[in-house]
């Protein structure tokens, strides 16, 4: 057979077949080439036997077998390839490798920009190793990386100019609200400043989500993908952080061994630059490994749902048995906020990994148990606090914590009701999914209220 580079229909068909095969992660380009040689041999033989090229191609493809089955066989033989995917992902997947390479370049450039950005204010005389400038950094740390992360997704998903504009506007407004309110010249943060620093990333995470989902923010599936992304990013971030900790320990230790103090390098450079750059790198890793390895968040959820349910139940039983009241002197409200947040996380990641079509199972029962016990524990705490809340006075911290508690309580309460109805078979699982994804903006809106309205409400204290 002679190779013709002209675009005859057979070449076009082979081209298409090759592109389709290349999308399989376990089949390397070099294997594709080998298979293509085979296909061409088969086609040539069939044509020689008197078939038309079209017919020959169809039969050759059919004889080659189902691509799914073939790529499964390749995956079984080359299981290591699925792991290598993590590092060299783009090369093996179907995307043209130039695009994948440019994505890697974009991500690492953005990580670098984030790392440089955090040092940029130093040029203007702001230094976070000095106490007075610390509040500035804490208020603004979201802005060193979240706009870049949003930009990455805007670029990757090819968002429209209009969405682009809205997101930019949101960030501009956030910068404004974080910095226009009068702030005392001191090295400690005021209460409202601390609240702003804590709530700003939550509010802006919505912008990241809209960019991440591309045009799919309006759909349950798009938002659920973002929930998955957030969980995976968190896990990756913790892992990168662990690695970074080892690096830092070695840096300090090794230089201490030769009598050189390296702590300032760690504090001024390694730690801040690494913390921000890692957000970008972590996000890229989550993007790159999508669908290759089973996601971690649902696995951890499966492991910890039952232990948490048991702990809360035992706690409730002890509460009743001993007749003790919850000690409300401490910041118990925040502790219960965190508990509800954790339960929400367990619920979200169970939902994200669950097959909506599957019938209720034992795990669902445990989850409902966890939901209900957490709700009861929280309501006991709330009842204790409500009785004496006027005594404490309304500080910004308490109002923020109370608001969050109510928001989470409403979410989990309705989730529990929907879940019970699902267990009884009166509604489908997708109702719970829709409720959760629909609720996502509420967190960000409340966070925005805390950032925007609390400082003037509480006299910038």
């Amino acid at each position, binding site marked *: *057979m*002679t*190779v013709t580079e002209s675009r005859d229909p057979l070449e076009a068909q082979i081209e298409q077949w090759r592109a389709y095969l290349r999308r399989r992660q376990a089949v390397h380009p070099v*294997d594709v*080439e*080998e*298979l293509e*040689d*085979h296909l*061409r*041999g*088969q086609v040539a*033989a069939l044509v020689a036997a008197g078939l038309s090229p079209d017919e020959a191609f169809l039969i*050759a493809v059919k*004889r*080659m*077998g*189902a*691509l799914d*089955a*073939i790529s499964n*066989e*390749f995956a*079984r*033989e*080359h299981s290591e390839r699925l792991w290598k995917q993590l590092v060299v992902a783009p090369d093996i997947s179907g995307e043209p490798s130039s695009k994948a390479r440019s994505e890697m370049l974009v991500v690492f450039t953005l990580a670098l920009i984030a790392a440089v950005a955090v040092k940029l204010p130093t040029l203007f005389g702001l230094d976070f190793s000095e106490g007075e400038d610390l509040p500035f950094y804490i208020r603004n740390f979201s802005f060193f990386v979240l706009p870049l992360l949003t930009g990455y997704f805007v670029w990757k998903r090819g968002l429209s100019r209009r969405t682009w504009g809205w997101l930019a506007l949101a960030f501009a407004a956030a910068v404004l609200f974080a910095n226009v309110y009068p702030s005392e010249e001191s090295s400690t943060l005021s209460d409202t400043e601390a609240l702003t620093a804590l709530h700003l990333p939550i509010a802006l995470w919505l912008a990241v989500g809209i960019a991440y989902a591309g045009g799919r923010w309006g759909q349950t599936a798009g938002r659920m993908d973002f929930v998955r992304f957030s969980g995976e990013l968190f896990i990756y971030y913790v892992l990168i952080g662990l690695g970074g900790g080892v690096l830092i320990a070695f840096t300090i230790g090794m230089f201490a061994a030769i009598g050189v103090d390296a702590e300032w390098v760690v504090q001024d450079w390694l730690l801040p630059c690494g913390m921000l750059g890692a957000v970008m790198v972590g996000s890229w890793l989550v993007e790159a490994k999508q669908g290759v390895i089973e996601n971690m968040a649902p696995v951890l959820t499966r492991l910890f749902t039952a232990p948490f349910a048991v702990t809360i139940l035992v706690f409730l039983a002890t509460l009743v048995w001993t007749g003790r009241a919850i000690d409300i002197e401490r910041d118990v409200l925040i502790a219960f906020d965190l508990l509800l947040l954790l339960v929400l996380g367990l619920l979200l990641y169970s939902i994200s990994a669950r097959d909506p079509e599957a019938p209720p199972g034992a795990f669902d029962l445990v989850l409902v148990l966890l939901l209900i016990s957490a709700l009861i524990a929280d309501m006991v705490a709330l009842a204790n606090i409500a009785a004496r809340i006027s005594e404490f006075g309304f500080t910004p911290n308490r109002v923020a914590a109370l608001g969050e508690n109510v928001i989470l309580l409403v979410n989990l309460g309705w989730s529990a009701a929907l879940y019970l109805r699902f267990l009884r078979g009166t509604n489908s699982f997708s109702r719970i999914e829709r409720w959760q994804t629909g609720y996502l903006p509420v967190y960000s809106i409340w966070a925005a209220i805390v950032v925007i309205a609390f400082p003037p409400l509480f006299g910038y204290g």
Partner: protein
Amino acid sequence: MDINKDLVAASATPLILAIIAEGDTYGYAILKRVSELSGGELQWTDGMLYPVLHRLERQGYIEGNWGSSESGRRRKYYRITKQGQAQLTEQREQWQMVDTALRNIWLAMSLPAGSITPIPQKD
């Protein structure tokens, strides 16, 4: 006739090794040879040959080299290694044993009943 899947899978390794032992060859030619040898009865899904070839390569029984086909296109040729030769000999002995046993029983079955004494069953 459809040949049992397990049987096809089991016979694939010795068949491929033996065909490569005949002389350096490549994927499509191996399948053509299989079809020739079995009179077209032994049909594999073409794509499934390659993972098997790669496994044999990883095990060190064969080695693959990229050359070029008569048309100038890149083509991967396979050659049997010393280890592969040894493996082939071993497989051959095993298959011959199975073959002998089967031949004997086919022969016994074709004889009239009672002409051979079956091994007595224990109660």
